[in-house]
């Protein structure tokens, strides 16, 4: 186990490269989810805002 973690003395390089990769992968998943959530919120908000106005116009006419 110790030998595995030491990586022939290259442990700092091997683990930092793999660790960074893991971080970017996790980051990509989370940013994609956030992107979708924000887009959803924005797409819904844009629809709901003008509705009262449109309803008001309908009532007047």
């Amino acid at each position, binding site marked *: 186990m110790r030998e595995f973690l030491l990586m022939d003395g290259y442990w700092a*390089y091997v683990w930092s490269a793999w660790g960074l990769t893991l971080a970017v992968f996790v980051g990509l998943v989370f940013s994609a989810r956030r992107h979708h959530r924000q887009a959803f919120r924005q797409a819904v908000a844009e629809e709901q805002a003008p509705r009262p106005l449109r309803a008001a116009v309908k009532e007047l006419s």
Partner: protein
Amino acid sequence: MWIWFHKLGSPPHFYRTAGRLVPWFGIPALLLLIAGAVGGLAIAPPDYQQGDGFRIIYVHVPSAYIAMFGYVAMAVAAAVGLIWRMKLAFAFAAACAPVGAAFTFLALATGSIWGKPMWGVWWDWDGRMTSVLVLFFLYVGVMALRSAFDDASKGDRAAALLAIVGVVNIPIIKFSVDWWNTLHQPATIAKFSTPSITMDMLVWLLAMVVGYTLFFAAVVTMRLRGEVLLRERGARWIRELAAHA
């Protein structure tokens, strides 16, 4: 066939289908990446020159490949969008850019980390690394141009044109950088020659490459759904979707 195509082209249908596709990409990607990681880190034999230091290859090479693949995918989508005026293709190109840029960054960073023990420096003006750096700049340009426009459809088309110009230029840039590199022989001499890969090392690398590709597809599909929503703001089906949620 055509009915199917049209159905897929309709945003609500596409949005739903894409949502269902994500786990089909994501789960095999996860399995392959875990297999590749275990194989690459623990099972594959150490390189006879670099020892365990060569295990960075399993994260570096697939990143560099996705960096290129992502740009080409983006440029093809951009061309489709410009030629057939397809909103969906623009949405795909927009979804590709940040993911591809992230992998380009990763290729540079892991290459740099690998370079330190192998060449003795963090950065070497080596032809391949330099052209990946320029590829990163091209990604940044496409993303910056798209976000500079208030009008999303204009931004889409301008960024698409730039992506196509970039893809035409990549071979020229690559050639010039390689040419430049052969003239200025690097001062640092690599401590090791390029590792010759044996079969029991290659299997895990292939698993990683396929895993990366599927992961890329999964993340791009997730972002694509967001891009579709942004381009369909105010459509009735989104309101209905929100009402059901």
